[in-house]
Protein backbone atom coordinates (compact mmCIF):
# COMPACT_ATOMS: atom_id res chain seq x y z
CA UNK A 1 0.00 0.00 0.00
CA UNK A 2 1.30 3.40 -1.02
CA UNK A 3 0.77 6.25 1.45
CA UNK A 4 -2.80 7.47 1.18
CA UNK A 5 -3.49 11.15 1.09
CA UNK A 6 -5.19 12.56 4.15
CA UNK A 7 -6.32 16.15 4.56
CA UNK A 8 -5.95 17.39 8.13
CA UNK A 9 -9.46 18.23 9.33
CA UNK A 10 -8.63 20.04 12.56
CA UNK A 11 -5.67 20.79 14.79
CA UNK A 12 -6.09 21.12 18.56
CA UNK A 13 -3.38 22.42 20.88
CA UNK A 14 -3.18 20.24 23.98
CA UNK A 15 -0.08 21.94 25.40
CA UNK A 16 2.47 24.21 23.71
CA UNK A 17 4.41 21.10 22.66
CA UNK A 18 1.54 18.67 22.01
CA UNK A 19 -1.14 18.88 19.36
CA UNK A 20 -3.93 16.61 18.23
CA UNK A 21 -4.56 16.26 14.50
CA UNK A 22 -7.91 15.02 13.23
CA UNK A 23 -7.38 13.13 9.99
CA UNK A 24 -9.50 12.45 6.96
CA UNK A 25 -10.29 8.95 5.87
CA UNK A 26 -11.95 5.84 7.10
CA UNK A 27 -8.96 4.56 9.04
CA UNK A 28 -10.76 2.39 11.58
CA UNK A 29 -7.79 1.66 13.83
CA UNK A 30 -7.80 -0.49 16.95
CA UNK A 31 -6.43 1.27 20.05
CA UNK A 32 -2.67 0.68 20.21
CA UNK A 33 -2.27 0.51 16.45
CA UNK A 34 -0.17 3.16 14.78
CA UNK A 35 0.17 4.89 11.46
CA UNK A 36 3.27 5.97 9.55
CA UNK A 37 2.85 9.70 9.04
CA UNK A 38 4.58 11.12 6.00
CA UNK A 39 5.31 14.82 6.30
CA UNK A 40 6.11 15.36 2.64
CA UNK A 41 9.61 16.53 1.90
CA UNK A 42 10.68 15.83 5.48
CA UNK A 43 10.33 12.31 6.92
CA UNK A 44 7.92 9.53 7.81
CA UNK A 45 7.40 8.72 11.50
CA UNK A 46 5.19 6.37 13.56
CA UNK A 47 2.31 7.79 15.58
CA UNK A 48 -0.24 5.94 17.70
CA UNK A 49 -3.90 6.73 17.29
CA UNK A 50 -5.31 8.81 20.13
CA UNK A 51 -8.84 8.25 18.83
CA UNK A 52 -10.61 6.69 15.85
CA UNK A 53 -9.41 9.50 13.59
CA UNK A 54 -6.80 11.40 15.59
CA UNK A 55 -3.12 11.34 16.40
CA UNK A 56 -1.59 13.34 19.21
CA UNK A 57 1.91 14.52 18.58
CA UNK A 58 4.71 15.74 20.80
CA UNK A 59 7.04 18.04 18.85
CA UNK A 60 10.49 16.68 19.53
CA UNK A 61 12.42 16.95 16.27
CA UNK A 62 12.39 17.55 12.56
CA UNK A 63 9.33 15.62 11.44
CA UNK A 64 7.14 16.46 14.39
CA UNK A 65 8.07 20.13 14.21
CA UNK A 66 7.33 20.14 10.48
CA UNK A 67 3.96 18.58 11.25
CA UNK A 68 3.27 21.47 13.59
CA UNK A 69 3.63 23.81 10.60
CA UNK A 70 0.60 22.17 9.01
CA UNK A 71 -2.91 23.33 9.73
CA UNK A 72 -6.39 22.18 8.82
CA UNK A 73 -6.61 21.79 5.04
CA UNK A 74 -2.97 20.74 4.66
CA UNK A 75 -2.42 17.15 3.80
CA UNK A 76 -0.09 14.36 4.82
CA UNK A 77 0.51 10.80 3.65
CA UNK A 78 -0.55 7.86 5.80
CA UNK A 79 0.39 4.18 5.88
CA UNK A 80 -1.76 2.28 8.29
CA UNK A 81 -3.32 1.39 10.64
CA UNK A 82 -0.39 -0.93 11.33
CA UNK A 83 0.70 -3.37 14.00
CA UNK A 84 -0.99 -5.23 16.80
CA UNK A 85 -2.94 -3.01 19.16
CA UNK A 86 -4.13 -3.56 22.70
CA UNK A 87 -6.40 -6.53 23.33
CA UNK A 88 -9.25 -5.93 25.75
CA UNK A 89 -9.32 -8.66 28.40
CA UNK A 90 -11.85 -8.81 31.22
CA UNK A 91 -14.11 -6.08 32.52
CA UNK A 92 -12.01 -4.10 34.93
CA UNK A 93 -8.93 -2.54 33.47
CA UNK A 94 -6.23 -0.13 34.59
CA UNK A 95 -4.47 2.29 32.26
CA UNK A 96 -1.02 3.58 33.21
CA UNK A 97 0.41 6.26 31.00
CA UNK A 98 3.08 8.91 30.88
CA UNK A 99 3.29 12.05 28.77
CA UNK A 100 2.10 11.72 25.20
CA UNK A 101 1.93 7.97 25.88
CA UNK A 102 -1.44 8.65 27.48
CA UNK A 103 -2.84 9.26 24.00
CA UNK A 104 -3.47 5.68 22.85
CA UNK A 105 -4.64 4.81 26.38
CA UNK A 106 -7.37 7.42 26.30
CA UNK A 107 -8.57 5.90 23.02
CA UNK A 108 -8.39 2.41 24.51
CA UNK A 109 -10.19 3.48 27.68
CA UNK A 110 -13.07 4.95 25.73
CA UNK A 111 -13.51 1.77 23.72
CA UNK A 112 -13.24 -0.37 26.86
CA UNK A 113 -15.83 1.76 28.62
CA UNK A 114 -18.15 1.54 25.63
CA UNK A 115 -17.71 -2.22 25.77
CA UNK A 116 -18.87 -2.15 29.39
CA UNK A 117 -15.59 -2.44 31.25
CA UNK A 118 -14.68 -0.44 34.36
CA UNK A 119 -11.72 1.75 33.55
CA UNK A 120 -9.33 3.34 36.08
CA UNK A 121 -6.28 5.37 35.15
CA UNK A 122 -2.95 6.46 36.50
CA UNK A 123 -1.40 9.19 34.37
CA UNK A 124 1.80 11.12 34.87
CA UNK A 125 3.34 14.26 33.40
CA UNK A 126 6.32 16.46 34.02
CA UNK A 127 4.42 19.46 35.23
CA UNK A 128 0.88 20.83 35.40
CA UNK A 129 1.43 22.62 32.08
CA UNK A 130 2.13 19.29 30.35
CA UNK A 131 -1.04 17.52 31.41
CA UNK A 132 -3.20 16.27 28.53
CA UNK A 133 -6.46 14.36 28.35
CA UNK A 134 -7.14 14.66 32.08
CA UNK A 135 -10.86 15.08 31.50
CA UNK A 136 -10.95 12.15 29.06
CA UNK A 137 -9.53 9.87 31.78
CA UNK A 138 -11.70 11.34 34.51
CA UNK A 139 -14.72 10.69 32.36
CA UNK A 140 -13.88 6.98 32.26
CA UNK A 141 -13.63 6.20 35.98
CA UNK A 142 -11.19 6.82 38.75
CA UNK A 143 -8.16 8.80 37.51
CA UNK A 144 -5.03 9.49 39.52
CA UNK A 145 -2.64 12.18 38.28
CA UNK A 146 1.06 12.59 39.08
CA UNK A 147 3.52 15.31 38.12
CA UNK A 148 7.27 15.16 38.55
CA UNK A 149 7.37 18.61 40.10
CA UNK A 150 4.22 18.25 42.16
CA UNK A 151 2.49 21.13 40.40
CA UNK A 152 -0.62 18.95 40.03
CA UNK A 153 -1.77 15.69 41.60
CA UNK A 154 0.64 13.46 43.44
CA UNK A 155 4.24 14.67 43.35
CA UNK A 156 6.71 12.30 41.72
CA UNK A 157 7.05 9.79 38.91
CA UNK A 158 4.09 7.77 37.72
CA UNK A 159 5.10 4.95 40.05
CA UNK A 160 4.42 7.29 42.96
CA UNK A 161 0.74 6.80 42.21
CA UNK A 162 0.92 3.00 42.02
CA UNK A 163 0.05 2.51 45.68
CA UNK A 164 -3.36 4.03 44.98
CA UNK A 165 -4.31 0.90 43.05
CA UNK A 166 -4.48 -2.78 43.91
CA UNK A 167 -3.38 -4.49 40.72
CA UNK A 168 -4.91 -7.78 41.85
CA UNK A 169 -8.30 -6.23 41.27
CA UNK A 170 -7.78 -5.61 37.56
CA UNK A 171 -8.35 -8.08 34.76
CA UNK A 172 -5.72 -6.33 32.61
CA UNK A 173 -3.30 -3.45 32.85
CA UNK A 174 -2.26 -1.28 29.87
CA UNK A 175 0.94 0.71 29.70
CA UNK A 176 2.23 3.43 27.43
CA UNK A 177 4.83 6.10 27.97
CA UNK A 178 8.57 6.67 28.14
CA UNK A 179 10.41 3.36 28.22
CA UNK A 180 12.06 3.93 31.62
CA UNK A 181 8.70 4.81 33.12
CA UNK A 182 7.17 1.61 31.74
CA UNK A 183 10.18 -0.36 32.90
CA UNK A 184 9.83 1.15 36.34
CA UNK A 185 6.20 0.07 36.56
CA UNK A 186 6.81 -3.41 35.17
CA UNK A 187 9.72 -4.09 37.54
CA UNK A 188 7.60 -3.07 40.50
CA UNK A 189 4.69 -5.25 39.44
CA UNK A 190 6.53 -8.32 38.12
CA UNK A 191 4.03 -10.74 39.62
CA UNK A 192 1.34 -9.26 37.35
CA UNK A 193 3.47 -9.22 34.19
CA UNK A 194 1.27 -11.78 32.44
CA UNK A 195 -1.64 -9.37 32.50
CA UNK A 196 0.22 -6.21 31.54
CA UNK A 197 0.22 -5.03 27.92
CA UNK A 198 2.73 -2.35 27.01
CA UNK A 199 3.11 -0.31 23.82
CA UNK A 200 6.82 -0.15 23.06
CA UNK A 201 8.75 2.44 21.16
CA UNK A 202 11.48 1.27 18.79
CA UNK A 203 13.01 2.87 15.71
CA UNK A 204 10.58 2.08 12.90
CA UNK A 205 11.66 2.39 9.29
CA UNK A 206 9.82 -0.01 7.01
CA UNK A 207 6.93 -0.73 9.41
CA UNK A 208 6.19 -3.93 7.49
CA UNK A 209 8.60 -6.34 9.12
CA UNK A 210 11.46 -6.57 6.62
CA UNK A 211 14.16 -4.08 7.45
CA UNK A 212 15.00 -5.27 10.96
CA UNK A 213 15.34 -1.78 12.39
CA UNK A 214 12.80 -2.36 15.19
CA UNK A 215 13.91 -5.85 16.23
CA UNK A 216 14.31 -6.52 19.95
CA UNK A 217 16.75 -8.82 21.69
CA UNK A 218 16.89 -11.68 22.41
CA UNK A 219 14.00 -13.10 20.35
CA UNK A 220 14.16 -10.84 17.33
CA UNK A 221 10.61 -9.61 17.92
CA UNK A 222 9.73 -7.20 15.10
CA UNK A 223 8.06 -4.46 17.13
CA UNK A 224 6.52 -2.91 14.01
CA UNK A 225 4.39 -5.93 13.11
CA UNK A 226 4.43 -8.19 16.18
CA UNK A 227 4.02 -5.07 18.37
CA UNK A 228 3.94 -2.28 19.19
CA UNK A 229 1.83 -3.79 22.00
CA UNK A 230 3.74 -6.59 23.72
CA UNK A 231 3.02 -8.54 26.93
CA UNK A 232 5.16 -7.43 29.85
CA UNK A 233 6.32 -10.94 30.70
CA UNK A 234 7.96 -11.10 27.28
CA UNK A 235 9.48 -7.67 27.82
CA UNK A 236 10.95 -8.74 31.15
CA UNK A 237 13.12 -11.23 29.28
CA UNK A 238 14.19 -8.71 26.68
CA UNK A 239 16.38 -5.70 26.07
CA UNK A 240 13.45 -3.55 27.16
CA UNK A 241 14.47 -1.01 29.77
CA UNK A 242 18.15 -1.66 29.17
CA UNK A 243 18.93 -0.46 25.67
CA UNK A 244 17.38 0.15 22.30
CA UNK A 245 18.71 0.68 18.82
CA UNK A 246 18.67 4.00 17.02
CA UNK A 247 18.53 4.93 13.36
CA UNK A 248 21.90 3.35 12.58
CA UNK A 249 21.11 0.17 14.52
CA UNK A 250 23.57 1.06 17.28
CA UNK A 251 22.51 0.19 20.81
CA UNK A 252 21.75 3.25 22.88
CA UNK A 253 19.95 4.33 26.00
CA UNK A 254 16.21 3.99 26.26
CA UNK A 255 15.66 7.36 27.79
CA UNK A 256 12.80 9.38 26.24
Amino acid at each position, binding site marked *: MRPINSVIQEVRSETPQIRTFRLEGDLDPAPGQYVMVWVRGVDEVPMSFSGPDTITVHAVGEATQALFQLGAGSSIGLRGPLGNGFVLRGDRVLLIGGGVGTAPLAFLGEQARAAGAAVDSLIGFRSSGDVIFQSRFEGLGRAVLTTDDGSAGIAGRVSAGLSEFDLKGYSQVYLCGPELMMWDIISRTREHASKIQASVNRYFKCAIGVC*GSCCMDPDGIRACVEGPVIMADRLLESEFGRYRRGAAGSRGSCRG
Partner: protein
Amino acid sequence: MLILLSLFSICSIMPSLSVHAGGLDLKNPVILAAGILGTTGASLRRAAQEGAGAVVTKSLGSAPREGHHGPTVVQVDCGLLNAMGLPNPSYREFQQEIDTAKEGGVPVIASIFGSSPEEFGRIASGLQADALELNLSCPHAEKYGAELGRYPDLVEAVTGAVKARAHVPVWVKLTPNTADIVELGLAAQRGGADAVVAINTLKAMAIDIESGYPILGNRFGGLSGPAVKPVAVRCVYELASALEIAVIGVGGVSRWEDAAEMIMAGASAVQVGTAMTKGYGVFGEINEGLSRYLERKSLNLEDIKGLSARRS
Protein backbone atom coordinates in the same frame (compact mmCIF):
# COMPACT_ATOMS: atom_id res chain seq x y z
CA MET B 1 9.57 -25.50 19.05
CA LEU B 2 6.76 -27.27 17.27
CA ILE B 3 7.93 -25.73 14.05
CA LEU B 4 11.48 -26.90 14.63
CA LEU B 5 10.38 -30.43 15.33
CA SER B 6 8.19 -30.65 12.26
CA LEU B 7 10.97 -29.32 10.04
CA PHE B 8 13.23 -31.89 11.51
CA SER B 9 10.93 -34.75 10.75
CA ILE B 10 10.50 -33.53 7.19
CA CYS B 11 14.22 -33.43 6.67
CA SER B 12 14.66 -36.97 7.85
CA ILE B 13 12.09 -38.62 5.59
CA MET B 14 12.29 -36.34 2.56
CA PRO B 15 15.03 -35.89 -0.06
CA SER B 16 18.01 -34.08 1.38
CA LEU B 17 18.14 -30.38 0.71
CA SER B 18 21.75 -29.99 1.74
CA VAL B 19 23.97 -28.23 -0.75
CA HIS B 20 27.50 -27.04 -1.15
CA ALA B 21 27.33 -23.51 -2.44
CA GLY B 22 30.12 -21.02 -2.96
CA GLY B 23 32.41 -22.61 -0.40
CA LEU B 24 29.76 -23.17 2.28
CA ASP B 25 27.96 -26.33 3.32
CA LEU B 26 24.31 -25.55 3.81
CA LYS B 27 21.64 -27.81 5.30
CA ASN B 28 19.23 -26.28 2.81
CA PRO B 29 19.48 -23.78 -0.05
CA VAL B 30 17.21 -21.05 1.34
CA ILE B 31 19.15 -18.09 2.70
CA LEU B 32 18.01 -14.86 4.37
CA ALA B 33 18.97 -12.00 2.00
CA ALA B 34 21.13 -9.01 2.92
CA GLY B 35 19.40 -6.11 4.59
CA ILE B 36 16.36 -8.15 5.55
CA LEU B 37 15.88 -8.49 9.32
CA GLY B 38 19.65 -8.35 9.44
CA THR B 39 20.20 -5.43 11.79
CA THR B 40 20.33 -7.52 14.96
CA GLY B 41 21.95 -10.79 15.89
CA ALA B 42 18.67 -11.84 17.47
CA SER B 43 16.65 -11.57 14.28
CA LEU B 44 19.35 -13.37 12.29
CA ARG B 45 19.41 -16.17 14.87
CA ARG B 46 15.63 -16.37 14.74
CA ALA B 47 15.71 -16.74 10.93
CA ALA B 48 18.22 -19.56 11.36
CA GLN B 49 16.08 -21.25 13.97
CA GLU B 50 13.04 -21.01 11.76
CA GLY B 51 14.75 -22.85 8.94
CA ALA B 52 17.10 -20.61 6.94
CA GLY B 53 20.07 -22.49 5.48
CA ALA B 54 22.27 -19.45 6.10
CA VAL B 55 21.74 -15.80 6.96
CA VAL B 56 23.23 -12.60 5.54
CA THR B 57 23.62 -9.50 7.69
CA LYS B 58 22.63 -5.96 6.86
CA SER B 59 25.39 -4.40 4.74
CA LEU B 60 28.11 -3.07 7.03
CA GLY B 61 30.40 -0.11 6.41
CA SER B 62 33.30 1.61 8.14
CA ALA B 63 31.32 4.11 10.16
CA PRO B 64 27.81 4.27 11.62
CA ARG B 65 25.18 5.52 9.13
CA GLU B 66 21.61 6.44 9.90
CA GLY B 67 20.41 5.94 6.35
CA HIS B 68 17.98 8.00 4.31
CA HIS B 69 15.01 9.92 5.60
CA GLY B 70 11.61 8.26 5.36
CA PRO B 71 9.59 7.00 3.71
CA THR B 72 12.22 4.32 3.26
CA VAL B 73 9.84 1.80 1.70
CA VAL B 74 6.84 1.93 -0.60
CA GLN B 75 4.68 -1.05 -1.40
CA VAL B 76 3.96 -1.08 -5.13
CA ASP B 77 2.11 -3.55 -7.34
CA CYS B 78 3.77 -6.91 -6.77
CA GLY B 79 6.81 -5.58 -5.06
CA LEU B 80 8.56 -3.25 -2.72
CA LEU B 81 10.59 -0.13 -3.34
CA ASN B 82 13.18 0.66 -0.71
CA ALA B 83 15.79 3.28 -0.06
CA MET B 84 17.05 2.49 3.40
CA GLY B 85 20.38 4.12 2.60
CA LEU B 86 22.60 1.46 4.15
CA PRO B 87 21.95 2.29 7.82
CA ASN B 88 24.33 0.30 10.00
CA PRO B 89 26.22 0.70 13.24
CA SER B 90 29.62 0.08 11.55
CA TYR B 91 31.24 -3.29 11.16
CA ARG B 92 33.12 -2.95 14.43
CA GLU B 93 30.04 -2.53 16.53
CA PHE B 94 28.27 -5.23 14.56
CA GLN B 95 30.62 -8.08 15.47
CA GLN B 96 28.63 -8.73 18.66
CA GLU B 97 25.50 -9.21 16.55
CA ILE B 98 27.28 -11.71 14.32
CA ASP B 99 28.36 -13.65 17.38
CA THR B 100 24.75 -13.84 18.51
CA ALA B 101 23.61 -14.83 15.03
CA LYS B 102 26.04 -17.75 15.00
CA GLU B 103 24.10 -19.35 17.83
CA GLY B 104 21.50 -20.13 15.17
CA GLY B 105 23.76 -22.94 13.98
CA VAL B 106 23.95 -21.98 10.30
CA PRO B 107 26.57 -19.99 8.41
CA VAL B 108 26.46 -16.25 9.02
CA ILE B 109 27.48 -14.25 5.98
CA ALA B 110 28.54 -10.65 6.56
CA SER B 111 27.47 -8.25 3.83
CA ILE B 112 29.91 -5.34 3.53
CA PHE B 113 30.19 -2.17 1.52
CA GLY B 114 32.83 0.47 0.93
CA SER B 115 33.84 3.11 -1.55
CA SER B 116 37.16 1.60 -2.62
CA PRO B 117 38.98 -1.72 -2.78
CA GLU B 118 41.01 -0.61 0.27
CA GLU B 119 37.96 0.17 2.36
CA PHE B 120 36.39 -3.18 1.44
CA GLY B 121 39.65 -4.90 2.35
CA ARG B 122 39.86 -3.17 5.72
CA ILE B 123 36.35 -4.15 6.70
CA ALA B 124 36.90 -7.70 5.49
CA SER B 125 39.89 -8.18 7.73
CA GLY B 126 38.08 -6.71 10.71
CA LEU B 127 35.13 -9.11 10.75
CA GLN B 128 34.72 -12.68 11.92
CA ALA B 129 32.00 -14.30 9.84
CA ASP B 130 31.54 -17.56 7.93
CA ALA B 131 31.63 -15.80 4.58
CA LEU B 132 31.58 -12.30 3.14
CA GLU B 133 29.14 -10.88 0.63
CA LEU B 134 30.32 -7.77 -1.18
CA ASN B 135 27.55 -5.30 -1.81
CA LEU B 136 28.57 -3.92 -5.19
CA SER B 137 25.00 -3.41 -6.19
CA CYS B 138 22.88 -1.21 -3.93
CA PRO B 139 21.24 1.22 -6.40
CA HIS B 140 20.50 4.10 -4.06
CA ALA B 141 23.52 5.05 -1.97
CA GLU B 142 25.94 7.61 -3.31
CA LYS B 143 29.57 6.48 -3.68
CA TYR B 144 28.69 2.88 -2.81
CA GLY B 145 27.11 -0.22 -4.23
CA ALA B 146 26.23 -0.08 -7.91
CA GLU B 147 28.19 3.12 -8.35
CA LEU B 148 31.27 0.90 -8.13
CA GLY B 149 29.64 -2.36 -9.13
CA ARG B 150 28.65 -1.22 -12.61
CA TYR B 151 32.33 -1.20 -13.66
CA PRO B 152 33.87 -4.64 -14.29
CA ASP B 153 37.39 -3.44 -13.44
CA LEU B 154 36.26 -2.12 -10.05
CA VAL B 155 34.34 -5.33 -9.34
CA GLU B 156 37.50 -7.29 -10.03
CA ALA B 157 39.67 -4.97 -7.94
CA VAL B 158 37.33 -4.98 -4.95
CA THR B 159 36.94 -8.73 -5.08
CA GLY B 160 40.70 -9.18 -5.32
CA ALA B 161 41.35 -6.84 -2.39
CA VAL B 162 38.93 -8.74 -0.19
CA LYS B 163 40.18 -12.16 -1.28
CA ALA B 164 43.70 -11.09 -0.36
CA ARG B 165 42.62 -10.49 3.23
CA ALA B 166 39.74 -12.85 3.88
CA HIS B 167 40.07 -16.41 5.15
CA VAL B 168 36.48 -17.26 4.35
CA PRO B 169 34.52 -17.61 1.09
CA VAL B 170 33.78 -14.36 -0.71
CA TRP B 171 30.51 -13.83 -2.55
CA VAL B 172 29.96 -10.86 -4.82
CA LYS B 173 26.49 -9.41 -5.11
CA LEU B 174 25.79 -8.02 -8.57
CA THR B 175 23.56 -5.29 -9.89
CA PRO B 176 20.98 -5.93 -12.62
CA ASN B 177 21.16 -2.24 -13.56
CA THR B 178 23.56 -2.94 -16.37
CA ALA B 179 23.53 -3.90 -20.01
CA ASP B 180 25.47 -7.10 -19.36
CA ILE B 181 25.52 -8.75 -15.95
CA VAL B 182 27.74 -11.53 -17.27
CA GLU B 183 30.62 -9.05 -17.69
CA LEU B 184 30.28 -8.19 -14.01
CA GLY B 185 30.11 -11.85 -13.04
CA LEU B 186 33.22 -12.67 -15.02
CA ALA B 187 35.01 -9.78 -13.34
CA ALA B 188 34.08 -11.13 -9.90
CA GLN B 189 35.30 -14.56 -10.97
CA ARG B 190 38.61 -13.12 -12.15
CA GLY B 191 38.93 -11.37 -8.81
CA GLY B 192 38.69 -14.74 -7.12
CA ALA B 193 35.08 -14.76 -5.91
CA ASP B 194 33.67 -18.03 -4.62
CA ALA B 195 30.19 -17.15 -5.81
CA VAL B 196 28.15 -14.38 -7.30
CA VAL B 197 24.80 -13.35 -5.87
CA ALA B 198 22.19 -12.04 -8.32
CA ILE B 199 20.31 -9.79 -8.13
CA ASN B 200 20.19 -6.70 -6.01
CA THR B 201 17.23 -4.38 -6.60
CA LEU B 202 16.34 -2.55 -9.81
CA LYS B 203 16.70 1.20 -9.63
CA ALA B 204 13.20 2.58 -9.47
CA MET B 205 10.92 5.33 -8.21
CA ALA B 206 7.35 6.05 -7.15
CA ILE B 207 5.56 9.39 -7.12
CA ASP B 208 2.65 10.45 -4.95
CA ILE B 209 0.11 11.82 -7.41
CA GLU B 210 -1.75 13.85 -4.81
CA SER B 211 1.28 16.01 -4.15
CA GLY B 212 3.80 15.30 -6.88
CA TYR B 213 6.44 14.33 -4.30
CA PRO B 214 8.65 11.34 -4.95
CA ILE B 215 7.54 9.02 -2.15
CA LEU B 216 10.91 7.77 -1.00
CA GLY B 217 12.91 10.18 1.13
CA ASN B 218 15.79 9.51 -1.23
CA ARG B 219 13.59 9.85 -4.34
CA PHE B 220 15.20 6.80 -5.96
CA GLY B 221 15.15 3.35 -4.52
CA GLY B 222 15.38 -0.30 -5.42
CA LEU B 223 12.56 -2.51 -6.64
CA SER B 224 12.30 -6.02 -5.19
CA GLY B 225 9.72 -8.78 -4.81
CA PRO B 226 7.68 -10.76 -7.34
CA ALA B 227 7.92 -7.89 -9.85
CA VAL B 228 11.64 -8.52 -10.39
CA LYS B 229 11.66 -12.31 -10.39
CA PRO B 230 11.69 -12.72 -14.19
CA VAL B 231 14.68 -10.36 -14.37
CA ALA B 232 16.45 -12.27 -11.60
CA VAL B 233 15.81 -15.64 -13.23
CA ARG B 234 17.24 -14.32 -16.49
CA CYS B 235 20.36 -12.99 -14.73
CA VAL B 236 20.90 -16.26 -12.88
CA TYR B 237 20.52 -18.21 -16.13
CA GLU B 238 22.96 -15.98 -18.00
CA LEU B 239 25.50 -16.07 -15.17
CA ALA B 240 25.26 -19.81 -14.60
CA SER B 241 25.78 -20.39 -18.33
CA ALA B 242 28.96 -18.31 -18.38
CA LEU B 243 30.68 -18.72 -15.00
CA GLU B 244 32.48 -21.57 -13.31
CA ILE B 245 31.72 -20.36 -9.79
CA ALA B 246 28.42 -20.78 -8.03
CA VAL B 247 25.47 -18.45 -8.57
CA ILE B 248 23.16 -17.58 -5.68
CA GLY B 249 19.71 -16.55 -6.93
CA VAL B 250 17.80 -13.72 -5.31
CA GLY B 251 14.87 -11.60 -6.40
CA GLY B 252 11.21 -12.34 -5.88
CA VAL B 253 11.56 -15.73 -4.26
CA SER B 254 8.54 -16.14 -2.04
CA ARG B 255 7.25 -19.66 -2.66
CA TRP B 256 8.93 -22.99 -3.24
CA GLU B 257 8.02 -22.75 -6.92
CA ASP B 258 10.14 -19.62 -7.20
CA ALA B 259 13.06 -21.37 -5.53
CA ALA B 260 12.73 -24.30 -7.92
CA GLU B 261 12.66 -21.92 -10.88
CA MET B 262 15.85 -20.18 -9.69
CA ILE B 263 17.62 -23.48 -9.16
CA MET B 264 16.58 -24.69 -12.61
CA ALA B 265 17.97 -21.43 -13.98
CA GLY B 266 21.29 -22.44 -12.45
CA ALA B 267 21.30 -21.21 -8.85
CA SER B 268 23.12 -23.27 -6.22
CA ALA B 269 21.05 -21.62 -3.51
CA VAL B 270 18.50 -18.84 -3.23
CA GLN B 271 18.00 -15.87 -0.95
CA VAL B 272 14.71 -14.54 0.35
CA GLY B 273 14.18 -10.83 0.93
CA THR B 274 10.86 -9.10 0.42
CA ALA B 275 8.89 -12.27 1.08
CA MET B 276 9.87 -11.95 4.74
CA THR B 277 6.92 -9.57 5.03
CA LYS B 278 4.98 -12.84 5.32
CA GLY B 279 6.98 -13.68 8.44
CA TYR B 280 9.76 -16.05 9.42
CA GLY B 281 7.65 -19.07 8.41
CA VAL B 282 8.67 -18.60 4.78
CA PHE B 283 11.83 -20.69 5.22
CA GLY B 284 9.92 -23.71 6.46
CA GLU B 285 7.33 -23.38 3.71
CA ILE B 286 9.86 -23.15 0.89
CA ASN B 287 11.96 -26.00 2.19
CA GLU B 288 8.95 -28.20 2.72
CA GLY B 289 7.63 -27.43 -0.76
CA LEU B 290 11.00 -28.16 -2.37
CA SER B 291 11.25 -31.46 -0.53
CA ARG B 292 7.80 -32.58 -1.58
CA TYR B 293 8.47 -31.55 -5.16
CA LEU B 294 11.72 -33.50 -5.32
CA GLU B 295 10.04 -36.48 -3.73
CA ARG B 296 7.14 -36.40 -6.19
CA LYS B 297 9.57 -36.22 -9.11
CA SER B 298 12.07 -38.67 -7.56
CA LEU B 299 14.83 -36.15 -8.12
CA ASN B 300 17.43 -34.48 -5.98
CA LEU B 301 18.53 -30.87 -5.94
CA GLU B 302 21.56 -31.58 -8.12
CA ASP B 303 19.29 -32.98 -10.86
CA ILE B 304 17.28 -29.81 -11.22
CA LYS B 305 20.17 -27.38 -10.83
CA GLY B 306 20.70 -25.69 -14.19
CA LEU B 307 18.16 -27.98 -15.84
CA SER B 308 16.88 -25.22 -18.11
CA ALA B 309 20.18 -24.82 -19.90
CA ARG B 310 20.03 -28.50 -20.78
CA ARG B 311 16.48 -28.10 -22.05
CA SER B 312 16.94 -25.40 -24.61
